[in-house]
């Protein structure tokens, strides 16, 4: 019985994290972006520096009418937000936060699980893009699919490098095997992984699929109300997942001073720092073109990923 209770507790904790952390990231983005542009950002909602802005946004979204365009493919259109959001929830279950089993659910092939399930999220965007009966949505969907060809391979290569280094593909196992000198060793892989991840999340500078100044909001153009909010939530959940994953794979997760009792804190701090970097990059760089991303991926990221794998292999052979 306590086993069931344990599982339920873990799942509830993951759910809470899933609902809270993206909002925290979103609010941070509001504020950090504002200050980087010499503004203040939201100041009213909630009283203190607009901390409740996203709650207010949620209330607003919930009140809006849920419009399905007349020419749309109803079922697919309505299903799409769930398809793009749920994978991130599933991924969050497998991410270890602290030592001694502080993880939603330890999965043997955790790394592959995470990458596989994250890849499914893209389907949501494509479904939305196709089902909206809108040419801008269609273009957004096309760009999403085209983008996949750029980021999928480098991401897998970089992740594969870590798996090689650790000799396991279970996420807690990888963190367990971590030593501080892995950071310089896997640095290139980490950069490749993070960049490819940004492209997967469609975050600036790789936000061509939603490019608001060109194709309105890409695949999400026709969405309103809660379904639209779900897409936004998926984006921020994606940031949390990507940052947590980079932390776990390349930054040693819970390792750090006092990791025995404060391991979970280290994971959170590292994740938060990476999330800050994601926002920082958004504010700093302009949007690339789709072909520029392809060029970057195929001429820079993939060769770098391969080089990282070679380096990992050599070092691995030398030290064993």
């Amino acid at each position, binding site marked *: 019985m306590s086993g069931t209770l344990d599982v339920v507790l873990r799942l509830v904790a993951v759910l809470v994290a899933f609902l809270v952390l993206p909002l925290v990231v979103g609010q941070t983005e509001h504020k950090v972006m504002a200050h*980087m542009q*010499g503004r203040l950002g939201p100041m009213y909602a909630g009283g203190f520096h607009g901390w409740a802005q996203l709650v207010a946004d949620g209330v607003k979204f919930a009140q809006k009418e849920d419009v399905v365009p007349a020419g749309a493919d109803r079922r697919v259109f309505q299903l799409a937000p769930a398809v793009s959001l749920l994978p991130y929830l599933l991924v969050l279950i497998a991410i270890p936060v602290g030592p001694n089993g502080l993880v939603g659910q330890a999965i043997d092939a955790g790394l592959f699980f995470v990458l596989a399930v994250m890849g499914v999220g893209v389907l949501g965007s494509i479904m939305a893009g196709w089902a909206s009966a809108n040419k801008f949505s269609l273009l957004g969907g096309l760009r999403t699919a085209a983008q996949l060809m750029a980021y999928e391979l480098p991401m897998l290569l970089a992740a594969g490098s870590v798996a090689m280094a650790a000799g396991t593909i279970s996420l807690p196992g990888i963190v367990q095997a971590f030593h501080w000198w892995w950071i310089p060793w896997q640095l290139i892989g980490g950069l490749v992984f993070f960049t490819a991840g940004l492209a997967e999340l469609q975050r600036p500078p790789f936000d061509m699929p939603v490019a608001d100044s060109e194709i309105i909001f890409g695949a999400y153009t026709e969405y309103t109300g809660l379904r639209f909010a779900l897409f936004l939530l998926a984006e921020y959940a994606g940031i949390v997942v990507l940052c947590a994953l980079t932390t776990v794979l390349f930054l040693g997760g819970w390792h750090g001073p006092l990791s025995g009792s404060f391991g979970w804190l280290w994971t959170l701090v590292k994740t938060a720092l990476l999330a800050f970097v994601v926002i920082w990059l958004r504010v700093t760089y302009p949007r690339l073109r789709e072909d520029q991303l392809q060029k970057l991926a195929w001429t820079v990221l993939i060769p770098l990923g391969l080089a990282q794998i070679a380096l990992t292999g050599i070092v691995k052979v030398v030290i064993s």
Partner: protein
Amino acid sequence: MSPVPGHGLAKGLAVTLRTMTRRSVTHQYPDAAPQLPPRSRGVIGLFEENCTVCMLCARECPDWCIYIDSHKETVPPAAPGGRERSRNVLDRFAIDFSLCMYCGICIEVCPFDALFWSPEFEYAETDIRELTHERDKLREWMWTVPTPPALDPGAEEPKEIAAARKTAEKLAAAQETAAQEGTAQETEPREGDA
């Protein structure tokens, strides 16, 4: 090209990070009053006592948004046996601020200094018809007109002051010559200089 690859990218990141640590430039308007520059064009104030109902402003206004009604009144002669005078009396003076484009022509054109810019700008209404403001309201705004800022140190003198000063100088010079003529006659009078 920069010597180090990625140099420009790092520079960009530095710019945004530096901006983040600086004070933001946002004005928190409803909480803090804005610092308006002098001569801000907020609303037009009317100083009725100066207005002679010459209608110049209403005629010059490019979008005809000044409404003036008046009637003539005969004023009894000031002194017995004198002539009766007629005078224009203002009945209505209204400006439709939903049409006004704040060009300031009416204020420039008024020969009697009856119209002034006030920096007051919070007079939004929920109904466009209520933006036509009558003379009492325009008069209230008159009291919010600030004293004009001092001229720049090297600026040309205002015309009226220059004229007044010239008159005063002339007068002083005339008095001086008169005094000189009265006391000492030996010196040559030099009126031509004044």
